[in-house]
């Protein structure tokens, strides 16, 4: 008998066994007492060296991607970029924990996860560049559009996972969101639906300490964000978000659990946002440089580099290879963003409905006439 059963039996008069019995013993649902770590622990040796090297390579390339995108905002080539610098371990591990048939539901900060999943780096940036809302084909990439309204993609992930299960396909959905997003109603509704439906879905909360300016203490009074899982009836896991193999193994376990009918999991990854919220934000208003410096010591690439060298599976050749790949990607981004985006204003009317309404046809004709008149003036 669990603690909760016991309480019900004694303290609730008129309690009908069965009707209100807890569905699961809460004890196994409780999150890890301290964040799961792999780097610098004996557990590292149990990990596939090929996977570790792959994680390292992707971290390095991802860091460069973050840097180049941030530079592009300074040059006015990207409208805005919410960098995941410092959070790369969560991003690449998320992508690697999924199989090809699975779906990713990213937030606006998760471009790097999208890219790690195989989406073209430039197509992944159209939203932030400002030329199109979603540059990739979500169905082909099995990746939903980058989601800006907070936590609203979480119920979508639940619905997709539920539908996939109904059709008998072993598809898992992974929804990514930030610590602040866990306060939104949609997050709670998604968790509840997922648990009730036992949907094959995994929620990854990247707790990077802040929601724009608001620190976690002003966001939630819970012992951890992973604790939020328990009340809904799913396990909560807590992991060091800067430890790539740790994030990967916790996510892979959760994905496997979901795939084999075990239901949803909430994973909280503890990490830190090294850059400001976006290039438009002034982080000095709400945090100290000392705090940032301390987290730089816990950098995901640094941790990986140190541990893998110790284990003897990271050599200069791989370091060079990763660095070269990173530079090549950065060069490609620079080159392609240097040119102005080619835009077709008539595309505004292309996808409002399957069939444009008569009103939209009229408005399209109006714009077309305006563009023709403009072109004439320019000649």
């Amino acid at each position, binding site marked *: 008998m669990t603690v909760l059963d016991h309480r019900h039996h004694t303290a609730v008069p008129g309690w009908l066994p069965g009707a209100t019995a807890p569905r699961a013993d809460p004890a196994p649902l409780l999150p890890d007492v301290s964040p799961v770590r792999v780097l610098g622990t004996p557990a590292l040796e149990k990990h596939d060296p090929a996977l570790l090297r792959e994680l390292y390579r992707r971290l390095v390339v991802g860091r460069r991607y973050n840097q180049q995108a941030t530079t592009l905002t300074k040059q006015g080539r990207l409208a805005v970029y919410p960098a995941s610098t410092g959070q790369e371990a969560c991003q690449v591990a998320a992508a690697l924990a999924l199989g090809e048939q699975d779906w990713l539901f990213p937030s606006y900060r998760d471009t790097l996860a999208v890219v790690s999943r195989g989406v073209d780096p430039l197509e992944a940036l159209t939203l932030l560049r400002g030329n199109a809302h979603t540059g990739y084909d979500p169905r082909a990439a099995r990746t939903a559009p980058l989601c800006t309204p907070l936590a609203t993609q979480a119920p979508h992930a639940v619905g997709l996972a539920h539908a996939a299960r109904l059709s008998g396909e072993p598809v898992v959905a992974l929804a990514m969101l930030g610590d602040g997003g866990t306060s*939104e109603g949609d997050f709670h509704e998604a968790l509840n639906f997922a648990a009730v439906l036992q949907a094959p879905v995994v929620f990854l909360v990247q707790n990077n300490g802040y*929601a*724009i300016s*608001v620190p976690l203490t002003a*966001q939630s009074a819970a012992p951890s964000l992973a604790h939020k899982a328990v009340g809904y009836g799913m396990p909560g896991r807590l992991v060091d978000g800067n430890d790539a193999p740790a994030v990967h193994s916790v996510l892979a376990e959760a994905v496997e659990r979901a795939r084999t009918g075990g239901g949803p999991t909430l994973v909280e990854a503890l990490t830190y946002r090294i850059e400001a919220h976006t290039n438009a934000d*002034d982080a000095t208003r709400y945090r100290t440089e000392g705090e940032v410096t301390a987290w730089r010591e816990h950098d995901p690439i640094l941790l990986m580099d140190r541990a893998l060298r110790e284990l003897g599976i990271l050599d200069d050749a791989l370091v060079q290879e990763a660095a070269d790949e990173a530079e090549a990607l950065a060069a490609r981004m620079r080159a392609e963003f240097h040119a102005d985006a080619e835009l077709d*204003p008539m595309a505004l009317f292309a996808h*409002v409905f399957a069939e444009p309404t008569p009103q*939209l046809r009229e408005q399209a004709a109006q714009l077309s006439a305006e563009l023709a008149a403009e072109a004439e003036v320019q000649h």
Partner: protein
Amino acid sequence: MAQALNSALRDAMREDPTVHVLGEDVGALGGVFRITDGLTAEFGPDRCLDTPLAEAGILGTAIGMAMYGLRPVVEMQFDAFAYPALEQLFSHVAKMRNRTAGKLPLPITVRIPYGGGIGGVEHHSDASEAYYTSTPGLHVVTPATVADAYGLLRASIASDDPVVFLEPKRLYWGKAEFDPAAPVEPIGRAVLRRTGTSAVLITYGPSLPVCLEAAEAAKAEGWDLAVLDLRTLVPFDDETVCRVVRSVGRAVVVHEASGFGGTGAEIAARVTERCFHHLAAPVVRVTGFDIPYPPPMLEHHHLPGVDRILDAVARLQWED
């Protein structure tokens, strides 16, 4: 304008201890547009509260605060991020006075930066006024000048009814001298910003500067355009609008929100009903297209500009 809004909040909080500000990032950061800059420093975190990230929670909490006698001023970070709070706004804020036969009026001001033209990505540029204007029980106010930003926000906070206060974000950085002590026309009154005899451009918020520019450009065509700034969409100033339309005889309604089912449709209908015999031409609307707000690189094709306004004026058939 941002500075004027900040002063309005500060002065209201100094004068009335029941005025409380709450929202996302309104504390140390001063809001993403800095409208609440320095308020937590001056009044403490109880009076200017950084909330958890939950718009329905913010507005729902404000309802309870107002029930207990406070005057909450809520900040929604961007137009499209107010949508999670629409249930609270539509089902409770707008209806509480009515549901309680006047016993529980809700003096809440909901400030929402709205509209496009600042290069924002998806969900940061919606012109959402029609949702609010079509919800009975809400006042809907939208300043276009620095003086109005101050005066109308003070009046909104002082109002015993809920006010949706729409701040045109592309005008935040507009500058003008203003005297906080100078009298400002109250909520519910439109103001003629420019007199003219050929036609009147009826507009509000972000489109006011565009209309003034169009009126200037129209001189080259020999047209003398009046520009009427509505300032408040609910209550609607039928009196001023009709007086001006009747004297000029031709009217164009301009706003950046989509036209179909938009606020301009309501305005055109009212004007037609009341001024039919004084009109020399149908009331024409110039609005954004009926499309989801476009990506920033294409937004200038969507937003009504001077040329589109002048084309509409031309369609008013000048020969009587």
